């Protein structure tokens, strides 16, 4: 009983409940075969794609800010890789650095604007989102004459960034996602920097007064979101041997929804990396797992909408519960 009530106060709990809810729903109403679902690669690949970006976005949201320019950064990373390595035939190492560099530059731009002005970061990154879409489209046309660029990758790049693992159809980005989850978990919950990020989301002025380098951390977090998005784009270009200008807009919503379903408060200051990991899995199962059910796939969006509202409501009640909880002395 005590264990249940303390479990209910953990920030990851709402996301675990959402996952169980979705699975139960799919089994009962969709007749899903859990063995087949767990063996399938489609949803895991998808989870890895959005999950790699969801991790830094979660940290940024915990710090009280948001970045929607990630939607343009995934295609930007892919196009940069394809233009450098495919169109110009330069070494893949240069292309990879180029793709990551464009993420760093846009992240610095967002972060510096966010710390130098009082414009809400939703608006700042909406600006960079649209601007980057323009740059990527016009730039690709200008440099390559088209909106789709093929490339060939050396074996090492394929193995590290864009291959299939376990001899099946699981992509290597899944490993990146799992490793990055561990890194972000360490950063957010074990290192002192995590403490600072939570404090920034709780009360930015107090955090600054406590001597925390609020501006520097904000800038680094923006660099993290933009760079992880360009990284995902780069991996996809290497995997599929081509890059297209389109795509990426849906990712904004999918990533933010995964983070919120993962138990991160929209107002900042509360959340967990484990929760976001589970939230991402839940989201991917809803979107891709629906193909394993008897349910028409158009219903997936309805489920996501319901899940999002339920998550926001749960996050709110869990936050209240966490605050009013009075734990007894016996466990430290």
């Amino acid at each position, binding site marked *: 009983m005590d264990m249940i009530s303390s479990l209910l106060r953990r920030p990851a709990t709402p996301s675990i409940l959402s996952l169980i809810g979705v699975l139960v729903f799919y089994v009962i109403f969709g007749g899903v075969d859990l063995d087949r679902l767990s063996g399938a690669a489609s949803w895991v690949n998808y989870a890895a794609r959005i999950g790699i970006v969801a991790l830094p976005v979660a940290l940024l949201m915990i710090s009280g800010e948001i970045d929607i320019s990630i939607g343009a950064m995934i295609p930007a990373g892919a196009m940069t890789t394809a233009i450098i390595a495919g169109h110009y035939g330069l070494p893949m190492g240069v292309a990879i650095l180029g793709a990551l560099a464009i993420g760093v530059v846009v992240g610095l731009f967002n972060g510096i604007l966010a710390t130098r002005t009082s414009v809400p970061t939703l608006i700042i990154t909406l600006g960079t989102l649209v601007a980057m879409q323009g740059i990527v489209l016009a730039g690709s046309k200008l440099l390559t004459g088209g909106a789709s660029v093929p490339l060939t990758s050396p074996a090492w790049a394929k193995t590290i960034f864009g291959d299939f693992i376990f001899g099946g159809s699981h992509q290597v980005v899944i490993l990146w996602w799992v490793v990055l989850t561990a890194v972000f978990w360490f950063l957010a919950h074990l290192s002192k920097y995590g403490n600072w990020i939570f404090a920034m989301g709780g009360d930015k002025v107090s955090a600054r*007064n406590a001597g925390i380098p609020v501006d520097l951390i904000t800038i680094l977090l923006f660099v993290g979101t933009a760079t992880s998005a360009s990284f995902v784009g780069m991996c996809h270009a290497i995997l599929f041997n081509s890059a297209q200008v389109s795509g990426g807009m849906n990712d904004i919503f999918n990533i933010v929804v995964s983070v919120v379903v993962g138990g991160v*408060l929209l107002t900042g200051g509360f959340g967990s990396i484990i929760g976001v990991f589970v939230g991402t899995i839940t989201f991917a199962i809803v979107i891709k797992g629906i193909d394993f059910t008897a349910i028409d796939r158009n219903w997936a969006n309805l489920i996501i909408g319901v899940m999002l509202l339920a998550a926001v409501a749960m996050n709110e009640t869990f936050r209240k519960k966490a605050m009013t909880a009075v734990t007894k002395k016996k466990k430290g």
Partner: protein
Amino acid sequence: MSATTPVIELRNVDKSFGPIDVLHEISLKVRAGEVLCLLGDNGAGKSTLIKTLAGVHAPTRGEILVDGEPVTFSGPKDAQNRGIATVHQFGGTYPLMSVGRNFFMGEEPTIGFGPFKIFDRKTANKIAVEEVQKMGITRITDGDRLVGGLSGGERQSLAIARAVYFGARVLILDEPTAALGVKQAAHVLRIVNEAKRRGLAVIFITHQVMHAMTVGDHFAVLIRGAIAADFRKGEKTREEITDLMAGGETMADLEASIEGYMETHDGHAPQMNTAG
């Protein structure tokens, strides 16, 4: 250090925000083991004054001396490192974080080495609970408890305990009793006395004359950013202090002006107009 050297001193400090002059020619001294009560109406500049002392704002003119040495603070952290701990009027704690994490914010104890240093939750919780209990808040026994679940007085005590633990020599409290009930306010006042007994210099801001008179050794009244009165305990009566706090007008004058206003405005009381 001789007993006569103030721990902290301000000499002719001015502070302006662009064209707005908030503080004029402020000179003050606080010695170890002494409580200075800073009094004044809303918008008089009390919070601005203590933010200047806390390194949040740099003075526009004038100098700040610590132990008789002129100093310039590069930021709040610099002031803290010199032993000036401030509990600001708003914020200061993070409701959705635990007691232990709040207590050590920005000063986290870690175990491990290199990039693998991890926050030492056990030690942090243990010390935080011990220190808060020393301040008399015995109801806090679990360092994992979220601060949002504590009462206002418990939160203030946590912030004060933190300042004392990190070796503060000057403790600045901006209206720590403002939102508190009688019992909790009394508790905070006891903590102020405890800090004073330990030899800290305390600057205490309040709107409540009774609270000021309970702990203060020395009083300074700020009116529109200037020091209008500076006196020691016992030199003025409660009524005189109340009048000074109302911005220099006596209560009798205020009452007369309200009556006058009501005569010319069909019996309506004037709108309250508070700044800051």
